[in-house]
């Protein structure tokens, strides 16, 4: 008993002293790494996606997509997005190889002319399909793509500022709230534009845990405070059992997905 108390005391003191010895930058990076580690090992997943766009007058427009993701051990994830509606873009698909460092590789398939086009991943800040999500909001979140600063903790919540490394990002920073007790899942992100004014807030809700480890949100709601428009993403039919391989993320798979 004495020993236990002592150990606890030592661990506690050490813990405190460690966290005091850490700079906010180091602690921020530590949280980002912990979140990354908590999500490591999922292998591959597929999910159905409904995107609901609402303009400032409340008019609603909807699009549906299917997404496949493959975790890569030594580099960023690979993903395949297939558009199902609106019907004029049905079958249009994108294949993305994210890289931890440097530009992502991206191909677009246009089913009407059966053409695969390599496209520039330079456009990070532009809107994805007319929505309030920028391309960079939806791309794979790799630790190396930001620098970090720990801001504060509130109960289970750890609040970390993230500054994008890429100068082409539309943001000066984002402020991300992690839930330490739930596998470091993200509860909320606030995006600050290049003038450092609050641009958007993204709220995550309807979390479910898969394979007893991986937390996935059922809904992500992005509100643009400057334009008063909002976009909601609804995720359904998460499947972690498909055991996809790199062969499912080739240019041939991209063409198959769109046909």
């Amino acid at each position, binding site marked *: 008993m004495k020993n236990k108390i002592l150990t606890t005391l030592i661990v506690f003191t050490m813990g405190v002293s460690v966290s005091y010895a850490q700079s906010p930058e180091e602690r921020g990076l530590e949280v980002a790494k912990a979140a990354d580690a908590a999500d490591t090992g999922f292998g591959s997943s597929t999910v159905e996606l409904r995107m609901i766009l609402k303009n400032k007058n409340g008019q609603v427009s909807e699009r549906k997509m299917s997404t496949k993701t493959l975790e890569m051990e030594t580099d960023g994830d690979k993903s395949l997005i297939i558009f199902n509606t609106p019907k004029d873009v049905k079958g249009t698909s994108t294949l993305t190889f994210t890289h931890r460092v440097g530009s992502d590789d991206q191909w677009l398939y246009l089913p009407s*002319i059966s*053409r*695969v086009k390599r496209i520039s991943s330079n456009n990070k800040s532009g809107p994805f399909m007319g929505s309030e999500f920028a391309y960079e909001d939806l791309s794979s979140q790799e630790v190396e793509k930001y620098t970090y600063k720990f801001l504060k903790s509130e109960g289970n919540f750890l609040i970390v500022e993230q500054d994008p490394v890429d100068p082409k990002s539309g943001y000066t920073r984002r402020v991300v709230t992690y839930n330490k007790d739930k596998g470091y899942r993200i509860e909320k992100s606030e995006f600050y534009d290049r003038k450092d004014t609050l641009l958007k807030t993204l709220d995550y809700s309807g979390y479910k845990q898969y394979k007893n480890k991986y937390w996935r949100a059922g809904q992500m709601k992005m509100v643009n405070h400057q334009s008063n428009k909002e976009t909601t993403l609804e995720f359904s039919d998460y499947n972690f059992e498909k055991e996809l391989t790199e062969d499912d993320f080739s240019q041939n798979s991209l063409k*198959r997905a769109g046909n």
Partner: protein
Amino acid sequence: MKVKSGVNYYSSRFYINKKDMKKYIVTVILSFTIYCGFTQEEKGPSLTHDFELELEGEYRYFFDEASFNNQENNFPSIAVRPEYSLEWNKGYESLNFKGFFRLDVDDERTHWDIRELYYQKAKSNWEISIGLKKVYWGVTESNHLVDIINQTDAVESFDGEKKLGQPMVQYSLSTNFGTFDAFYLPYHRKRTFAGSKGRFRFSDVLNKDDFGYESDAEEWHQDFALRYAHSIGIFDVGLSHFYGTGREPLFDFDAFGNINAFYPIINQTGLDVQITHNAFLWKLESIYRTSDAQDFFAAVGGVEFTISNIKNTGIDVGLIGEYLYDERDELALNALQNDIFFGSRIAFNDIQSTEILLGGITDLENSSKIFSIEGSRRFGESMKVEIEGRFLNNVDDNEFILSNFQNDSFLRITLFKYF
């Protein structure tokens, strides 16, 4: 100068040996049915299928008085595109169908086609497709030199990007050092030409029987193609070879000025390269084609640069410049022999996906110019409107082909409805 579109309009008439084609299609469908039956027994019936229908109403208006007798100015038209796909074996096996029918003022533009009807099976790193299919090769915007598998549906569009379904067996293998494709192409399809009421024709209406074949096997000459493609870092490279009956007809003139038009047996080697570096896409396509009647080299190369999300409006503006070279002389069909293409693609990235494409081709040796504008915008969830304008300016009278089309500037508006 000659423009791709001109080429297509010059050399087309809906001519297929319908009996043979039907026989072929029936065989293909039968083998599908048998194969599907077997597969289902093995894997269990987890089938997913999908039916889509697209209706189109179109109006083309040619504002200049016609060059030749019988040519019309107004072309209302309707088209229908049914699509059906059936997938099983976790999506690794499928049957795909895309049909097409158009009704037009021009009898020759009234036509139907099976764009695609093929069975496909994919397993780990390989894939096989059997049936009528469409395949696209290439990277450039103003001309599609390397793309050779499918015949152009030349009455269908000005830009030549609409294609006829090509019977084939395609085997594709993806490896760590690139993708290898082998094609067996057992049947050739001729191009369609505008009829007497149609624009983009010559003083004489070209008849389907005007075009013969170099090969005694005619449309049944057995053609083959190979392609190797690799994406490595910022490079996307494709190397291809085609042997068989060419998709472009060749025009021979005898001493009396009579035209002998036919589809030659050709060998064509193609190279396409794209370098994607930041906002720049550097593109090159080139071909070397040999046949008994003609050997030549052609190339198109240039750059596309996109300024994205201008002033946080979400608007992207792309600027495209390409140089086109063709070694063939004026009599040749695809004689974009020394021209410059410039264009701009404006994407508004709004909810309606509004897009505008402006372009121009100018001959570096004479006065001929073609300007174009294309735009599209979605309405609601299931409608789309497209506009297209093509303006032929100062066409040089010495242009062998284009001079026939100098009064064929037009505006088109098309409404699409999706079900």
